[in-house]
């Protein structure tokens, strides 16, 4: 007596025999038709780069009417220029996996080439008055950088990983010596740089306003985005990624690994050349200090935060890093920097503590109470400890005055506070559970103390400390950055 019961098919398992086409019939008929439907269909068919290329101006344009000329230069132009630079460095670091520490030199060579070919200047008894149209001098800048990239990239034929990093670092130093000290035939005008540079002039059309440069750079970014997307999806792009993951295997599969590396260097350098020439035109000058190691670290911070290999990441990273860089500049109002610092602090705590938000809320409340208590006790015992003035506190003056300890001459105390803050953070990483939450309270208070007494006076240095810490933190916590893809290492 064997009766075969039909196997029970749960609803969640893949339904064998059900046609996908039939199953989705409802969804298909529900699609919007008419103009909306056509737009939606085009949007769906667009490759990611196309979407990105459309979205970027859509986000970037609406701000235009509300932004003053100076802010547009400081924020808009710089964000776009660094986005270009990051897109170029992404080719070398993200696609091809080579560490190029001389990248900023290409930016500099681009700027100097443009400035030399479209401007009037002279030194050491030579005078140069080339006034080429921008289309020719930008082209020349791109070519010069591409050739230099070819030259530097060819050293990667023999050098692996770390040695390549050192040679490129040396290349960056050589650029500084070349412009600053060597100054052959007066073409770079030594440490004074090239000051009289023409604005962008295409045939008979001149860009003279910051808004014009903004539009032009936006166009450049969109074009570069589309080009890079096409390249990264092409045979070459796939070969880059393959040789990044395993050069030996790629070589054995018949890919010309050396030529690929040189191509990546050259393409990255060419994009940096473009960025450099527009930069020189926009600030009508090219000076050695524009191309220092700080700039290199900024570009790296953008690429690493955005996520190596991701095009979206470069744009978002540039917006985040450059905006905070400019807010923390010594010329911008300190109170904006203060708000940015505290919000970044809270965001960092939220994302790194991996604790529930209720507990964090308790910790923040405890920090506030702790601060007022400490302030009251110290104020009663040692009056000098609370007698200092808030550095341009704005609407927060009252709170800070009564919450943070502000000694009259912080000096040494601020330095000890900084060291104590580092010790606290180190201990915080080591501890677990409730102890960690308990230590968070004094750590936050010490951080606020250090900010109010030391960092707020030197935001320009603080930002570089923060960017250095950011590089370490991103690499250890989330190496793929915000938008990169996590890699599985097969060892």
């Amino acid at each position, binding site marked *: 007596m064997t009766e075969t019961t039909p196997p029970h098919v749960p609803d969640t398992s893949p339904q064998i025999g059900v046609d996908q086409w039939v199953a989705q019939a409802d969804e298909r008929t529900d699609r919007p038709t008419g103009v909306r439907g056509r737009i939606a269909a085009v949007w769906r068919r667009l490759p990611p780069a196309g979407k990105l290329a459309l979205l970027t101006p859509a986000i970037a344009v609406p701000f235009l009417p509300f932004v003053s000329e100076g802010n547009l230069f400081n924020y808009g132009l710089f964000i776009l220029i660094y986005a270009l630079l990051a897109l170029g460095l992404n080719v070398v*670091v993200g696609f091809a*996996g080579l*560490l190029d*520490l001389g990248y900023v030199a290409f930016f500099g060579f681009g700027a100097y080439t443009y400035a030399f070919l479209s401007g009037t200047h002279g030194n050491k008894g030579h005078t140069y008055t080339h006034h080429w149209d921008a289309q020719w001098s930008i082209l020349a800048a791109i070519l010069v950088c591409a050739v230099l990239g070819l030259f530097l990239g060819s*050293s990667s034929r*023999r*050098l692996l*990983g*770390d*040695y390549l*990093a*050192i*040679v490129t*670092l*040396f290349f960056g*130093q*050589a650029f500084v*010596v070349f412009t600053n*000290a060597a100054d052959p035939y007066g073409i770079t005008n030594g440490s004074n740089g090239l000051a009289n540079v023409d604005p962008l002039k295409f045939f008979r059309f001149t860009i003279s306003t910051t808004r014009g440069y903004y539009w032009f750079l936006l166009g450049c970014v969109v074009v570069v985005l589309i080009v890079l997307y096409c390249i990264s999806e092409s045979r070459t792009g796939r070969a880059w990624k393959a040789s990044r993951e395993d050069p*030996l295997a790629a070589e054995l599969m018949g890919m010309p690994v050396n030529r690929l590396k040189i191509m990546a260097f050259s393409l990255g350098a060419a994009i940096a050349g473009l960025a450099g020439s527009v930069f020189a035109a926009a600030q009508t000058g090219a000076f050695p200090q524009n191309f220092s190691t700080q700039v290199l*670290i900024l570009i*790296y911070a953008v690429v*690493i935060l955005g996520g190596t290999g991701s095009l979206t990441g470069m744009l978002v990273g540039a917006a985040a890093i450059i905006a905070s860089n400019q807010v923390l500049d010594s010329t911008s109002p300190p109170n904006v920097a203060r708000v940015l610092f505290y919000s970044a602090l809270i965001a960092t705590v939220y994302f790194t503590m991996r604790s529930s938000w209720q507990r964090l809320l308790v910790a923040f409340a405890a920090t506030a109470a702790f601060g007022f208590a400490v302030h009251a006790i110290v104020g009663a015992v040692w009056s000098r400890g609370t007698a200092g003035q808030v550095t341009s506190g704005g609407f927060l003056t009252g709170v800070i005055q009564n919450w943070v300890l502000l000694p009259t001459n912080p000096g040494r105390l601020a*330095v000890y506070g*900084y060291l104590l803050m580092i010790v606290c953070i*180190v201990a915080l*990483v080591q501890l677990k559970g409730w102890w960690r939450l308990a230590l968070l309270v004094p750590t936050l208070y010490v951080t606020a103390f250090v900010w109010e007494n*030391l*960092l707020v006076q*030197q935001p320009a*240095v*603080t930002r*570089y*400390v923060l*960017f*250095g*810490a*950011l*590089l*370490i933190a991103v*690499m*250890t916590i989330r*190496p793929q950055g915000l938008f990169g893809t996590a*890699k599985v*290492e097969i*060892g």
Partner: protein
Amino acid sequence: MNSARGQRLGNLGGLGLVLVAWMFYAVYFSPTTGWTFFFQLTVNGIILGSVYALIALGYSMVYGILKLLNFAHGDVYMIGAFIGFGVLTLLGGPLNPAIPVALLVFCMFVVAMLGSGFLGLAIERFAYRPLRDAPRIAPLISALGVAFFLENSALLLFGSQFRSYDGFDLISYNGIHIGGDNGVFIQYLGVLVIVGAFLLMLALLALVRWTRLGKAMRAVSFDREAAAMMGIDPDRVIAATFFIGSALAGAAGVMFGLLFSQIYHLMGFLAGLKGFTAAVVGGIGSIPGAMLGGLLVGLVESWAKGYLNGNVSDLVVFGILIGVMLVRPSGLLGTPALQKV
């Protein structure tokens, strides 16, 4: 005799020939400056080279064990110099020290070495250990971040002005003249630096060759996984390596401060690059190679400063670096790296 050893001997022989030829050329064909000038530069070069050799040792040890280029090493050296300065000011300054000068200098060395050693431990723990199995580019970027963090922290804490050790006041500016009053002059401080550096290096050599820790270090640098299977804790060995390498860098920082009497927050960058050059020229991963490379870099820099000019000397040193990396990446005393598949 195997071929790697033969190649090393050949390298040394070639180097010796080049040095002897250069010496004869410099002594006989530069009548305006004469032989004292040459030997004075040589002595200065050896003193400077001892400092570079100490920096190079840290690079070389870390590279040998982790295959990681520790960009932050130059900045550990800078922090070491500042710790030494802190001890000096705490104990009364160079003009009226609170304790005998010999003891003071000893204290400076000990505290700076301990401080930099712990800094190295912390750097390893936070910036490199989480990235042990990451792609090779990740720890390099992290190292870049550490270097930048340390440099700017020092700028924040100590300001951008130069700090003066006043080593000349501390250990009076006396020395030995060799070959009459116009002969070669060696200051006692220089002797102290050379002897101190060589003692530290000998101690390190002995440690690596004869102690259990040294044996473990060699094992881990040879094959980390196999060493772990033999019961060695690689994390502890790597931490110990960082501690020792960073302590040597701290000693180098104090020596630099005593010799040149000026320290500032950016001093680590160039010194780090030169230490790395020394490590590569000597053969990265080899301890005697790092010493030899350090001396060579110091000598070349000193000669280039004397016979050419100050701006060019760095370019000459880095030109040599690139030449060595392109022509003989294994350096003078290193073994050619085999790429394992």
